């Protein structure tokens, strides 16, 4: 009974790992003030979702969905999640590079890439008497 429980855990380790990675990425995004750390956290979150999708399409003992010479037509893994995730990786890279370009703009504007320092600057601007 206990043994089969651990076998189940080992067979579904990708789902557990995807959930753990999503939580770790979310923690990195929420608790860090540095923008580059936040972007790394977003990347970890998106790769965890990709891992979940491709693990759902996986079939035990199957081959990749590629035709070869002398093919037996044996079981293939589901090609639909792979095709979707291929697009998702490219979209993720474009999101990352867009965020990094905004980080450069923020650094030119404020001289820092820490969120709390930027908020302090903005608050001191608001508090200063200008009337």
């Amino acid at each position, binding site marked *: 009974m206990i043994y089969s429980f651990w076998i189940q855990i080992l067979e579904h*380790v990708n789902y557990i*790992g995807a959930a753990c*990675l999503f939580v770790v990425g979310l923690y990195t995004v929420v608790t860090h003030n540095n923008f*580059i*750390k936040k972007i790394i956290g977003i*990347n970890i979150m998106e790769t965890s979702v990709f891992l979940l999708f491709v693990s759902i399409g996986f079939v035990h003992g199957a*081959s990749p969905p590629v035709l070869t010479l002398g093919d037996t037509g044996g079981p293939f*893994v589901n090609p639909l999640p792979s095709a979707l995730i291929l697009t998702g990786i490219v979209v993720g890279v474009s999101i*990352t590079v867009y965020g990094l370009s905004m980080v450069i703009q923020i*650094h030119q504007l404020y001289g820092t890439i820490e969120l709390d320092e930027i908020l302090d600057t903005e608050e001191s601007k608001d508090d200063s008497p200008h009337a």
Partner: protein
Amino acid sequence: MQVLNFILVVFLVICALAAGHTKDLLSAVVIFASYSLVMAVLWLLLQSPDVALTEAAMGAGVTTIMFIAVISRTSRMEK
């Protein structure tokens, strides 16, 4: 194969924790590059070689270069 899969997933979680924990942004980016490479091996283990190729080229290559370019323009250490 199941055991290798388990080891790779544990390595991924440790890499993600370490990338969040370190104060040096450059080492965080290098840890993230190793995370992407191990993720590419995991795609290969999950029988999707096209995703593995894209992950190795995009995740470990292009993203790392972009991060290093931005760190060289801004500051290396996190406060």
